[in-house]
């Protein structure tokens, strides 16, 4: 049973046929291969039927021969539909404009949240972020990615240890870990000062409490240095011991220095390429040359476009190609040792408190194996070895 599946593609019209011999017109149409369908009789003198637009002329001639009249009742199919749509092009433009606006709004920064910061830090952070371009109404695909923002912000802010940057849709979320400067305890509890590590006492300065050791004494870890019990026997009082006990301590640091190192340095020459990625296919938009660098490092930055809450399979891709230079650095054994010494010193200083002083260094061991110099260094350090130990109530009763 054949129907006409192309009906909606070509335009067709519903016509009214007024006159006698309607049946003969049907037969004539069929004989001439003119598709005709949905034939309905209205009354003895009229019928309705559907025919294609391209057949109208032929059907008109036919009707003239049979002395019938034709009325056009309805216009259907895609050509008429498109014509109607075109007549209402304001509507179409509005629809396109609406989608465009939603698309643009979906790719804008709408909200910046800062958590874990006090008002001052928050203000500074917002200012620093605004300098990077993160402010309301900015297009997300013009901004660097979260990782880079995080790095830049952490560099800019001094009083912050770490900033976590997450981008959720149109919202930027900053999580701040502030450097905590501990407040000094105003009311001190009774306590002793004990040794942090084994050392030889260098100097002792007591603000409060009873010193139990004197310079040049050798103390073990955990030994009481300044007692919180003061006063005559029988009239003993508990006080929070305060003071500084400088002791000479010993540290061993191991470092390894390779004799040969390959370095990569940037020459400063770079090329930028911009792409629009559609379903993973990268279409270059700007920047056609690769730079023809001998050695280069490529960094890719991808920002997907969004529509409301969905990520579109279309993304903006920025490629940074930077020329690099291969440099080989070779140390002699002595050079390696001196480099190792400074490295070891730096490493030690990182571990020590700021007020510690290094008073002596000795090389314990040097060995060369597999193109590396292994160095063990011994350091004498003067540092504060006092650490507080509260006196518990059970001790109080004793």
């Amino acid at each position: 049973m054949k129907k006409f599946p192309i009906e909606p593609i070509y335009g067709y019209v519903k016509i009214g046929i007024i006159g006698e011999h309607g049946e003969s017109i049907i037969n004539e149409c069929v004989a001439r291969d003119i598709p005709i369908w949905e034939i309905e009789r209205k009354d003895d003198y009229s019928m309705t039927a559907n025919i294609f637009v391209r057949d109208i002329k032929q059907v008109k001639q036919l009707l003239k021969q049979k002395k019938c009249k034709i009325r056009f009742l309805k216009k259907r199919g895609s050509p008429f539909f498109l014509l109607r749509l075109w007549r209402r092009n304001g509507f179409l433009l509005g629809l396109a404009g609406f989608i465009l606006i939603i698309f643009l709004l979906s790719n804008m920064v709408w909200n910046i949240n800062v958590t874990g910061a006090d008002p001052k830090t928050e203000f500074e952070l917002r200012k620093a972020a605004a300098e990077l371009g993160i402010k309301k109404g900015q297009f997300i695909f013009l901004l660097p990615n979260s990782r880079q923002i995080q790095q830049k912000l952490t560099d800019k802010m001094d009083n912050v240890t770490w900033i976590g940057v997450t981008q959720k849709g149109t919202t930027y979320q900053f999580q701040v870990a502030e450097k905590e400067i501990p407040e000094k305890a105003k009311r001190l509890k009774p306590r002793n000062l004990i040794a942090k590590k084994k050392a030889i006492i260098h100097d002792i300065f007591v603000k409060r409490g009873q010193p139990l050791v004197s310079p040049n004494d050798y103390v073990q870890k955990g030994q009481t240095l300044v007692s919180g019990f003061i006063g005559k026997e029988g009239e003993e009082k508990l006080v929070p011991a305060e003071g500084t006990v400088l002791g000479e301590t010993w540290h061993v640091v191991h470092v390894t220095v390779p004799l040969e190192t390959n370095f990569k340095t940037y020459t400063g020459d770079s090329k930028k390429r911009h792409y629009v990625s559609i379903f993973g296919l990268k279409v270059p938009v700007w920047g056609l040359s690769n730079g023809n660098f001998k050695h280069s490092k490529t960094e890719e930055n991808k920002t997907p476009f969004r529509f409301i809450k969905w990520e579109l399979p279309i993304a903006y891709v920025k490629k940074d190609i930077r020329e690099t230079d291969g440099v080989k650095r070779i140390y002699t054994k002595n050079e390696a040792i001196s480099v190792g010494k400074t490295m070891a010193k730096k490493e030690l200083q990182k571990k020590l408190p700021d007020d510690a002083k290094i008073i002596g260094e000795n090389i314990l061991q040097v060995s060369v194996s597999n193109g590396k110099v292994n160095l063990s260094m011994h350091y004498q350090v003067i540092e504060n070895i006092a650490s507080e130990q509260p006196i518990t109530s059970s001790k109080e009763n004793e």
Partner: protein
Amino acid sequence: MVKWRQQVSKWMMQKLELPADIVMDLPRITMIGQLHIYIENHRGVKAFSKEELRLNLINGVLIVKGNDFVIKTILPEEILLEGKIDGVYYEELNNKDPAQKKTK
């Protein structure tokens, strides 16, 4: 001569088990409940109204009776009719009285 040909085709149909509508050029009618009727091998529309469709056949007229008829599709040898079908009747050329075939 015509009678002799008809007899030959009748014999072929019975002995060779060929479909009757092809051998003898008879209409093949398919009905889906009272909703649709699909007729092949017709020879044009004789009369069409809301209640009745008359189709020319090789030797006779096929009459479909019912309500709300619409010709959905019409092709040189096929026709699809929609509506509420009450009955299908045959009218042979030499016999004016409609001979009943199917009634609902």
